[in-house]
């Protein structure tokens, strides 16, 4: 190894603590990016794997546009020439006593064997029981189920046990291995029909079609036919916004990580500047110095990358479960497989670490190549140069902010443009850090002087003197704090919007039933309606259908009841819109209107059970139930179009001020409990919705934490570097009569100063980011309007993080000051 390179590399072990911090910084940045990307991939592939597993060797699925269908059509299907195999399915959810809901498939084992041989091969095999007994139990016992072995292990159930569920106890007669990531319970289709009250009806038929055109020509009227690809595409479409969000979070993690790497590279350049000057005076070429520096930064990047790869893997294990929770809550029940370690993650981390390090070192490297040996021998950038560079950076910052504004104007083209605008905002704002530090120096001197006396004043001067290196640390910390404020404000505003939405739409006193799990028998609805004294009983049915080939939701409600008891947030008009709904028109959610570019007065065509039906759009309303779009209609219209009498929920409304309210509600509750139906008060329903909302932001929150950690390491690194660079100065302070405590306080004040400037900068940037996330990203990703509402919490959290992190970051340098204080020397190293 050449001595020039060696002279640079020796700094790594020589300044162990700083190298470790730099290494951790790169590792954290890489871990965040790798962890997020890897977990997103695992969660999403678990999802597609689960879909593929259940599809088996089927090529298509056949179902009614909405609701179950009569099983008599199986006879017609058995005579269908274009179909070589088919298997009817009851596809429902069942809630266990522990509160978890799982997918229960009612299947015909014999018909299913052709389409899902992987499943059929196992489902009747239980090595512990004689074959005939197993078969017999599955077919003869109405409560017999086969349980996914992973699920059985998780809930600690074995063959022969009774499994308590919301629909009574089920007997486990066997276990089967389930390679898919979705937990499954299997039941004989006849027993499942009985269990869910679907006698004579089935949810779906999976098919192997040999002649698609011929099949469609005979079956398209009144049925929804989807090929495997279409089904997968529509399921993927469901996850589009979610996936986009994860990608954005991965990029964000990389962005902050890159900042830190840049930070690391810049410190390396700054602390090698004098050595570079010596080397140049001895005749080393710029090329040799650049090579030595690149070697150093690449080694640091590679080590940090490897460490980050390992960290990213462990992080992904945590994130996958959070993501799966979100996917399960919003789209599809999923229990993802634990991410498996692979050399690829290692390589990914390594590549990212080196690439980010090289990318992050571009500007510092340019500075190193331009370096004047005379200046370099002085060891520092002169005061004026720091100011000039800060001014130049601020000018570029203005340009980048302008670009961000321009991108916002063009964000209607694609949400990615909005994301780039957000990144440009953060980047542009970060370029102002030097200028803000410079401008705030007099105020900072006064403030830190008042707080820390003489050490405080000296600390303020040190910050200004070391403007460039401090500016990068401040920028990184500012980005992290802006993310905290921006994401926090966005989440709080969203929560407020959800509150407003609930209070406008969900005004029922009691809600009976739960979407996706239970159905409310129609006779029960009639029974409740007949109770004298109730203000109104709304019927609610929500079903996913295909509109123009993409999944949307149709909701059937009782327009007369909602007109009387709710105050929807309308995009146009008011409650008079219900009049048109009563007459057969529909209202659409804002997400539907934006997604399909339709408005009040337009007509939309839905595939009904008797073919396409044109429906007039009466109005659009604000809604946050589905980003895919909701078409709401009166139950009478729904029955006419889909002939589906299923009810998911009924809402009971009392007249305001009714003195008999408690007795009436008790009566309704008693009758629902008698039928085994879940009952929720309005407050409980709100609570459920908000906890669901909060769980969907778990990943975002963890990301926020990670960025703060990364920035914290950045600040610690900055303080430690300042400390190391000025060991000589400490000696001078000591000679002047400063005590160890005063020197320590100086470092503390420097940390605090950096934290305060970072926080002050993050206030407008975080607010602007929140507005961008709300007005651009949310609107483009989910097609719904979130109303910005100011909340103190994110700002207080940001402020507390800034102060605590900057003080915490100063602890190690202070410890070093105390430890080395007696040995501090004025002479050169």
């Amino acid at each position, binding site marked *: 190894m050449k*001595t020039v390179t060696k002279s640079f*590399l020796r700094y790594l072990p020589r300044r162990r603590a700083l190298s470790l911090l730099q290494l951790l910084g790169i590792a954290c940045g890489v871990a965040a990016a790798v962890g997020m990307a890897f977990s997103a991939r695992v969660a999403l592939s678990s999802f597609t794997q689960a879909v593929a597993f259940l599809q088996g060797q089927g090529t298509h699925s056949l179902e009614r546009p909405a609701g179950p269908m009569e099983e008599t059509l199986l006879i017609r299907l058995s005579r269908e020439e274009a179909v070589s195999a088919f298997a009817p399915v009851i596809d429902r959810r069942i809630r266990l006593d522990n509160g978890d809901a799982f997918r229960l498939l009612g299947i015909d084992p014999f018909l299913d064997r052709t389409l899902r041989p992987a499943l059929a091969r196992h489902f009747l095999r239980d090595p512990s029981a004689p074959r005939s007994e197993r078969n017999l139990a599955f077919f003869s016992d109405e409560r017999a189920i086969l349980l996914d072995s992973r699920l059985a292990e998780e809930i600690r159930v074995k063959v022969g046990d009774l499994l308590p569920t919301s629909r009574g106890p089920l007997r486990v007669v066997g276990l089967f291995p389930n390679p898919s990531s979705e937990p499954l319970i299997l039941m004989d289709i006849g027993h499942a029909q009985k269990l869910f009250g679907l006698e004579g009806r089935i949810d779906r038929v999976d098919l192997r079609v040999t002649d698609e055109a011929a099949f469609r020509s005979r079956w398209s009227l009144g049925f929804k036919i989807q090929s495997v690809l279409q089904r997968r595409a529509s399921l993927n479409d469901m996850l589009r916004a979610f996936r986009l969000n994860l990608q954005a979070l991965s990029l964000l993690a990389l962005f902050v990580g890159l900042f830190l790497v840049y930070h690391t590279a810049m410190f390396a350049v700054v602390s090698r500047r004098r050595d570079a000057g010596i080397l140049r005076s*001895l005749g080393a070429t710029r090329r040799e110095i650049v090579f030595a520096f690149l070697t150093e930064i690449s080694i640091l990047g590679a080590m940090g990358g490897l460490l980050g790869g390992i960290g990213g893997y462990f992080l992904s294990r945590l994130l996958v479960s959070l993501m799966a929770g979100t996917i399960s809550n919003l789209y599809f029940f999923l229990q993802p497989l634990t991410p498996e370690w692979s050399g690829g993650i290692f390589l990914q981390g390594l590549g990212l670490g080196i690439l980010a390090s090289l990318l992050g070192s571009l500007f510092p490297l340019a500075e190193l190549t331009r370096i004047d*040996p005379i200046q370099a*021998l002085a060891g520092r950038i002169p005061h004026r140069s720091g100011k000039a560079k800060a001014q130049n950076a601020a000018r570029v910052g203005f340009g980048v902010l302008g670009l961000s504004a321009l991108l916002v104007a063009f964000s209607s083209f694609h949400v990615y443009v909005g994301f780039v605008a957000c990144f440009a905002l953060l980047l542009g704002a970060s370029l102002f850090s030097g200028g803000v530090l410079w401008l705030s120096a007099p105020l900072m001197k006064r403030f830190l002087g008042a707080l820390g006396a003489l050490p405080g004043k000296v600390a303020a001067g040190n910050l200004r003197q070391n403007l460039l290196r401090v500016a990068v640390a401040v920028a990184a910390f500012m980005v992290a704090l802006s993310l905290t404020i921006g994401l926090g404000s966005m989440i709080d505003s969203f929560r407020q919007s959800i509150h407003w939405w609930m209070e406008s739409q969900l005004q029922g006193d009691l809600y009976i039933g739960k979407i996706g799990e239970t159905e409310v028998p129609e006779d029960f609805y009639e029974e409740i309606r007949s109770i004298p004294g109730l203000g109104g009983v709304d019927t609610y049915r929500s079903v996913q259908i295909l509109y123009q080939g993409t999944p949307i939701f149709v909701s059937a409600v009782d327009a007369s009841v909602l007109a009387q008891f709710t105050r929807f947030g309308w995009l146009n008009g008011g409650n008079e819109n219900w009049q048109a709904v009563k007459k057969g028109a529909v209202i659409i959610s804002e997400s539907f209107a934006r997604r399909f570019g339709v408005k009040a007065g337009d007509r939309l065509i839905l595939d009904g059970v008797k073919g396409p039906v044109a429906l007039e759009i009466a109005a659009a309303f604000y809604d946050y139930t589905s980003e895919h779009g909701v078409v709401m209609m009166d139950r009478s219209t729904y029955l006419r179009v889909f002939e589906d009498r299923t009810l998911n929920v009924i809402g009971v409304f009392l007249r305001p001020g009714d003195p008999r309210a408690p007795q009436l509600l008790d009566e309704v509750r008693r009758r629902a409990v008698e039928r085994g139906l879940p009952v929720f008060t309005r407050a409980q329903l709100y609570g459920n919705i908000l906890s669901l909302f909060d769980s969907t932001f778990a990943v975002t929150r963890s990301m926020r934490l990670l960025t703060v950690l990364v920035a914290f390491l950045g600040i610690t690194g900055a303080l430690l570097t300042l400390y190391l660079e000025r060991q000589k100065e400490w000696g001078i302070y000591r000679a002047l009569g400063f005590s160890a405590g005063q020197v320590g306080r100086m470092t503390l004040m420097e940390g605090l100063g950096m934290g305060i400037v970072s926080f002050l900068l993050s206030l407008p940037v975080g607010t602007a980011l929140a507005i961008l996330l709300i007005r651009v990203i949310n609107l483009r990703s989910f097609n719904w309007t979130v109303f910005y509402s100011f909340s103190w919490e994110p700002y207080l959290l940001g402020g507390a993080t800034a102060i605590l992190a900057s003080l915490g970051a100063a602890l190690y340098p202070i410890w070093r000051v105390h430890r080395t204080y007696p040995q501090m020397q004025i002479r050169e190293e």
Partner: protein
Amino acid sequence: MSAMIRTVDLWKEYDPSERSPSPALRGLNLEVQSGEVVALYGKSGSGKTTLLNLLAGLDHPTRGKIEIGGQDLASLGEEGRTMLRRRRLGFVFQFFNLLPTLTVFENVFLSLELIGRLEPERAIQALEAVGLAGKEGRFPHQLSGGEQQRVAIARAIVKEPALILADEPTGNLDTSTSEEILRLLTRRCREKGTTLLMATHSPLTCRYADRMLRMMDGRIVEGPALEAAP
């Protein structure tokens, strides 16, 4: 004897944009012959270091001409000046400027490595010549100031350059150590016929020189041979 250093009307202004510029060098003319040991004597701020930096090609003159060994520095270009420093020039600084992460041996060997002569025994010999035998494995911070300057001298002489520029080589040392260092440096240069230009504000240094040039306000001036410099 041919001229090793020749400057003609050399000017250096650090900030030419200033309204009333105060150049560090004001039309300086100088000629030093090969093998000469010259002391450049003057107060702080008289322009000594500026001149040395210009002669080493570390800085650019505002105007004027510099020739080293008959080569015009301006015509050499950046790469050429680097090669000149690498092969023909040795530099000794007041604050030693050793690389803190390299051992004593590595600091000296670095000069050889840069010119492509990977001969460790030469580095050892250079260290022996400056009286540092046995301290090859130490790091600069483990040495005294005098020892560090000896390493810097070994680093400069090991490649046997035609010219050594020494900027206040004893400015940071006590008198007895200064004498040792000056003796060592001048003896070695005389033995090898190396030209030595020492910038100093110490009359002591001048005693070891063949010739003394007095610098004042950016010019070389005639005047009394020595005066007490601050």
